Each structure stands twice: as C-alpha cells, then as structure tokens.
C-alpha cells in the first residue's frame, strides 16, 4: 500500500485539482457562454487567448505565470504589499498553474454545449417575462449542464496531471507543492524510488479514469433527465 508521504502526495493532488476546478468553474461558464453567444470580431481574439495554455508548452505557461505572480511580478508584488505573503512556491501556486492549464478544456466543453442550446428557447423565455440572467439560469445553464460537467471533469483530470507549469511556478516542496507528477519525477531521480513510482502511477491512472467515467455517467444522466 501507499506510504505516509505518498498518501500526502495523493491528498495534495486531489486538493489542488479540486480547488482549480472550484475557482475556474464560474469564470469558465461565463467565458464559455460569452464565446458561444457574443457576436463581435473580438470574439476570435478572446477565444484564441483562452485556448493559448492548451497549445503553449506548460513550462512556458509556468514561466509567464511566474512573471505575473512571482515576487517581482505585478500581481505578486501587489499581493505581498497587501498580505505580506507570497504566491509563488505555495499550494496556491499549484492551484493557479493547474487552473490555467485546465481552463481551455473547461471553457471549450461549456462553449460547445451552450452552442447546442437553441437560442429560440432563450427568446421564448424572454418574451414570457424572464430577463437575461433568469433565462440563463433557468434555460441555458440547465440545458448546457452535461457540457459543463464534462468540461469540469476534463479540467480536473488535466489538473491532476499538471507538471510543467507547476514545477516552474510552485517548485517541489514536500507537503506543499509536491503533487503526484512532481513526486513521480522526484522518485524517478532517486535510486530506490521505483516501487513508489509504480504505486503513484497506478493511483494516477485510477483517479483519471474514475474522473472520466464519472463525467460520462453524469452527462448521460443529465441528458436522460432532459428527455433528449
């Protein structure tokens, strides 16, 4: 079975992935909706920007984030001036790295499912006396829910596997920023880490697979509930 430090690594990974989904789900829904419904030439530019972390090498994403939230970066120094603490090389930095890298997957899933909602349903809702926000919450969001769930789970799974940006932005601090991929990398470089690597790899595969299966099941249940 897993050793005490390994359990700590798995716990930290799940925590980081969970938080990364939690902090990005609301902006993800807003952006997904905006990218599906906004009629503007700027839409393509916005979409490109959101998708960027999907194609950038994660190490580069980590570098850019470090420039932003590191001690000398604009956000990092402002944070330090206000709270006296730092962002980089903390569990928070792991969450930021995982959220940014998983964000495009979440937004794209939500965007596609909002596109699948007939805008005429939204029009009818408005003419029945429900405003924009109410229409979104009562019609668009429930009908797009399978996509929202799918996008959230994909980004959770992506966050579990996040390595490149994390190692640059958060480093490799045991109990604080050492997530499963970072731990695997560390164990691989140590002389007697092979057994530990195998155990963590097995856990990693199991967690990712479970997340994907759960997403599929939830989406199917949602669709059945919607009668489609």
């Amino acid at each position, binding site marked *: 079975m897993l050793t005490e430090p390994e359990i700590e690594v798995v716990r930290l990974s799940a925590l980081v992935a969970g938080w990364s989904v939690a902090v990005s789900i609301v902006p993800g829904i807003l952006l997904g909706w905006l990218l599906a419904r906004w009629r503007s030439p700027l839409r393509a530019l916005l979409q490109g920007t959101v998708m960027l972390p999907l194609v950038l090498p994660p190490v580069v994403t980590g570098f850019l984030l470090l420039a932003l939230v590191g001690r000398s970066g604009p956000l990092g120094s402002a944070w330090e001036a206000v709270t006296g603490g730092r962002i980089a090389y903390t569990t928070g930095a792991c969450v930021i790295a995982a959220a940014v890298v998983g964000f495009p997957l979440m937004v794209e899933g939500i965007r596609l499912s909002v596109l699948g909602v007939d805008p*005429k*349903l939204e029009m009818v809702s408005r*003419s*029945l*006396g*429900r405003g924009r926000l109410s229409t979104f919450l009562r019609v668009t969001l429930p009908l797009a829910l399978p996509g929202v769930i799918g996008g959230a789970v994909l980004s959770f799974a992506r966050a579990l596997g996040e390595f490149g940006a994390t190692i640059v932005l958060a480093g490799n601090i045991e109990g604080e920023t050492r997530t499963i991929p970072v731990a695997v990398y560390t164990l691989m470089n140590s002389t007697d880490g092979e057994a530990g690597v195998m155990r963590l790899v097995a856990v990693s595969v199991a967690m990712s697979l479970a997340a994907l299966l759960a997403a599929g099941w939830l989406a199917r249940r949602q669709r059945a*509930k919607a009668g489609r």
Partner: protein
Amino acid sequence: MSIEARVHHAFRGFTLDVKFESAGPVVGVFGASGSGKTTLLNCVAGLIKPRDAKIAVNTRVVCNRPGGTWTPPERRKLAIVTQDPLLFPHLSTRANLTYAPGAADALESDSGWKIIDVLRLKPLLQRNPGNLSGGEKQRVALGRALLSKPEMLLLDEPTSALDAELAREVLALLLEVKRSLSVAMLFVTHKAGELMALADDCIVLSEGKLVAQGPPVQVLSKPRAIGVANLVGVDNLLRLNVVRHDEEGGVTLLDLGGHDLAAPLCAAEAGQQVSVGLYADEIMLCLESPAGLSARNALPCRVTQIDAMDHEVLVNLRIGATDLLARITPGAAAELGLDKDTQAVAVIKTAACHLLG
C-alpha cells in the same frame, strides 16, 4: 386593445418598412414567406432591435428608436408562440406552463383553470414534453403563453408545422381562446382561411411593405389587386352566411348578395359564416337566364368593370353588394358584347364553390 407601429428596419438586403395602427382585437398579418411578417412580429416582441421604429401596445410605447424608449422583451407583456412549440425540454409540462413569473399562482386561479380547460391541458400536466404529440405541444405552448397574462399574444404561424387536421384543431382552439378568454392577438399567417376565421382586422405585407389593411373579408376579396392571389389560392374569397341545408339536393345554401348560392353540403349551422373560394375561370357568364341547366347557380349580376389582358378578359361583377371576378376569353367577351353596366347572369357549379372552413 390597440397596436400602433411604424417600423423601418434593414438587414441583409431586406428592408421592412411598415406603418399601421389597429384596434384589433385580433390583428392578422398576412403575406407570402419573405414578406417580412415574422420580422415585424419580432420587432413588436422586442427580439429584434429595429433601427428606426415606434411601437405602442395599448398606447404604451415599448420602442421608440433611435434615441427613445426601449423596453426589453421580458417587460413588454407580449408572449410569443411560434410554429415550433419550443417547450423547455428539461422541464415537465407543468413546469413549462408555470414558467412565466406569476404563472404558478395564475394556474391555481379561476382564470388559470379556464385556460387549462379551454386548451384541454389537464391530461397533459403529468406528462413529459418529450412524449407529447405536435398538436399537444402547441396546446402547451399556447397555455404557457396565456398563463403569463400577456396584454397581447404574438402568434407566428402557430399551425404551420402541423398537418391539416391538427392545424384545424389548433385554429379552433385559438377561436375559442379569442371568444371565451378575450385575449388580443397579433397573428402572423399565410393561410387565408385562418385569417378570415380569426382576424378582425388585417394588414397585408409584400416584400417588406404594407399593401393593404382592413377586415380580412374585404382585403382578401380582391386578392389579385394586392398581389396575394397565389397565396389566397382563389380569385374570389367570400365570407357568407349559411341560410339552410338541403340534404336531399346535396347542397348548403349560402347568402350571396341576397341570392342563394348552392355550395357543397357542409357542417356549419344556419346563421354561421363560412369561407368560400371561387376561381375566376370557373364562373360562366350568360346574357339571359339559361334553361335546363345542371349548374345549381344562375345569379343575376351587373358588370362593373372590364379589364382586357393579353389573352383573357377579367370581368368584375356585382351581385347585390358582393363583387366577383370572372375570367373569359376575348372572343367570348366580344360575342356577348359585354360592357360596363351590362346585366348578365353568372353561372356557377356547386362543385366550383370551394369551402375553405
């Protein structure tokens, strides 16, 4: 109930340019597809923002652009029902019906139960919208719109997606809604029969412009003049009272300008109005009343106008106070010596009287 609209809206090479006012209570919007009917309806609903328009419902200005009032659709109290019922698929039938703010309370009130009653929605309440038939869905859509207590119902070809039988059923429901719930409506259609049956006043659109306005029976009586002959499908469209049925003779007698018009037997009761279509080339003209005739109708008439076209002559006739259009060949016109004010006899077979419901 009243509606007043002036709309100028251009998009993708099409321009809608319409100005009208009407006291309704049911205003028909008639025209071919692409004539701008739906665009007009969407402007009234607030689903399209026209560049230059003033729209008032019951003297309440909901749109005055550029620069003035803009009431968003949710605050106009104008519920729309389109040809696609557009039920919310994730909600039960009951939740669809109570979707509008206040509709849940309305459903529990007497007026709410009357709506359920008129639309026969009670057996549908517990069913999932996905399992309803097309006609049932449209009934739910109508109920959902009515339960939002709109000042006016906006109907965009509500029967178009249904087969003929269901379309008649939904039309009958709309008539019942008009009669027993006295709801005002703006009713877009391309079916002349529906317009005649439901609308009190109508406007006719052609290529984005208003070409006629008035009571449907008046406006549609000369469809050729306003370019909707194809749409109406017949040259003469009449709304006539049933006098009595002659079952032995196989005819229903209708009152046409004080004369009896023998039409095919129909189910309407005496005193009720029916719509009858007559093709101009199925009306025969004689100078004297013919004898030994199989055609059941020989109606004395007066020629009011003659229009000679290339290879045909259009003869405008008046029977009592009703105008009819007949089409004959130039040779026949010359032989009969037809002229303005000529007294003639219009011969019409019973089978040529097309009952339109």
